[in-house]
């Protein structure tokens, strides 16, 4: 039995390598090659089409002299922090409350998920209307009699970003809820029963037992949200077009603008590389720490 195990493991390992072949091909062929190509273009003076020339770090210098780019990075940091936390909290609460055997769970689940189904081009415009002081909430509340009520974040330079947070949390919380719900539903029924038998209060069960068990779903949700933050584009274009002025500029929009409208793929590539490097700088330490913890756990 013991002698047979290694060969079986080897056979399994070969099958695993073969099974992972599509992933390997995709990573190397699509992602790595693209990143290398992008890096190459970022040190050239390409406009619409790649040129073969080499301009050193000129595009990067131009990038960091660009106030709009620097502002977009700053906006991303602020937006990212608030968005991820808000989505995780709201998604968790929604999942937990929906899990309480409520009437009409199917309908409620669809209500919370439908924003994710809709194209943000139209829903973004609706949010712009709702948040516009002349058309939306401020106008309605004032008509109800509260003439001093103001809710015009979207027209202010320093507050417009929070409106984007509002609309995108509306869109993404449902998905987080679905993720966490599938995780919650994987929690043993036995656990609930045992906890009830032992007399532990429900909220304690959640914080001490369920939350740790939800860790994989939470970490998936966190990565998903982080990816959404870095790729944030549709919402900004539909709601504020990066405005007022450049107040809600984000890196993905900057890259898109220079890639297509402004016909400067050299600068856009440099911006992409910087964005990727920033993400790597944030993610790599976390990943390394997690690997270390896993290694300790297996040892």
């Amino acid at each position, binding site marked *: 039995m013991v002698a047979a195990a290694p060969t079986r493991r080897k056979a399994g390992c070969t099958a695993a390598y073969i099974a992972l072949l599509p992933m390997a091909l995709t990573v190397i062929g699509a992602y790595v090659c693209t990143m290398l190509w992008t890096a190459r273009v970022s040190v050239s003076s390409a406009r619409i089409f790649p040129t073969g020339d080499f301009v050193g770090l000129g595009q990067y210098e131009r990038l960091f002299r660009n106030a709009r780019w620097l502002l977009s990075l700053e906006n991303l940091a602020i937006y990212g922090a608030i968005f991820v936390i808000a989505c995780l909290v709201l998604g968790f609460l929604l999942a937990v409350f929906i899990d309480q055997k409520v009437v009409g769970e199917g309908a409620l689940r669809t209500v919370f998920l439908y924003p994710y189904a809709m194209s943000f081009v139209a829903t973004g415009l*609706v949010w712009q209307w709702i948040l516009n002081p002349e058309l939306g909430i401020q106008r309605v509340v004032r008509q109800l009699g509260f003439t001093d009520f103001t809710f015009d974040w979207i027209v202010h330079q320093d507050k417009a970003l929070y409106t984007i947070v509002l609309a995108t949390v509306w869109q993404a919380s449902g998905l987080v809820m679905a993720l966490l719900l599938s995780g919650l539903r994987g929690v043993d029924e036995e656990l609930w029963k045992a906890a009830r038998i032992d007399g532990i209060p429900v909220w304690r069960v959640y914080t001490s037992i369920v939350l740790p068990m939800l860790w994989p779903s939470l970490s998936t949700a966190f990565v998903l949200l982080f990816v959404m933050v870095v790729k944030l584009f549709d919402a900004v274009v539909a709601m504020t077009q990066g405005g007022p002025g450049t107040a809600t500029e984000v890196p993905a929009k900057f890259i898109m603008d220079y890639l297509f409208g402004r016909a400067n793929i050299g600068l856009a590539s440099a911006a992409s590389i910087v964005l990727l490097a920033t993400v790597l700088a944030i993610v790599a330490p976390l990943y390394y720490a997690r690997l270390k913890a896993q290694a300790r756990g297996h040892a």
Partner: protein
Amino acid sequence: MKRDVMREIDLPPVRRRPRSRITPARIGVYAFLVTAALFFLVPLYVMLVTSVKPMDEIRLGNIFALPLSPTLAPWHSAWQAACTGLECEGIRGGFWNSVWITVPSMVLSIVIGAVNGYALSFWRPRGANLLFAVLMMGAFVPGQVMLYPLVRALAAVELYSSLPGIVLVHVIFGMPMMTLLFRNYYAALPEELFKAARIDGGGFWRIFFELMLPMSTPVIVVAAIMQVTNIWNDFLLGLVFAGSDHLPMTVQLNNIINTTTGERLYNVNMAATILTSLVPLALYFLSGRWFVRGIASGAVKG
């Protein structure tokens, strides 16, 4: 006493009818859910109301007001009469194209994601984790940046502007999140299951198909929700890679909504958006039967 409890748990999971106790906790639950639902529904209300108003009323700018003279003409127009260029046939033309693109892409990307996640979390071959790390980095690359090299690559293998080409592109772009989803899900399953199956003589594929896949229903549902939504609503990749014979519905939708210097009929735009989103919405509503409790636990005891 404990034995009785255990036997009760051995029964297959059954959806219990909600017990009708009206406690403060229960009221709190419903209050929270209803308030949240109202917040979520406000934009839908504006969209529906706008979609049945004539343009004259929309120009007045009372977005929350009910229509004075409601009309279903925008819905009819959105489906089959709105102009999308020279033709004025609404969004219905691209419906089947969207289906032909979405179904294979979704199935293929979920299968590959599941196999990847399974291999990464149980078998852990050498170098796989590094590969996975690079794959996750790829998830952060904005799709538009990858357009030019992908176009060149696909054109070189004659897959550019074709149905297999767009399916391949969707699989590539979906792989990071699908792999992550399944890997984390399998990592949460007890390792004893896997070890027991190995001892029983299972090989790589046998364990996958007979043990892991049947237990993956909740994550498959979430994966399907994500992929169907992303692929069905995708516009740029479909426009660039699908070729003019297979353009998805989102291209017509974009043509209706996104006119640059043409007049905008907001009622038609809203109707078209809601119509386009009905497919993912139907999936959400129907997926309920798979969000049941205790699928994994049943296998452990059994």
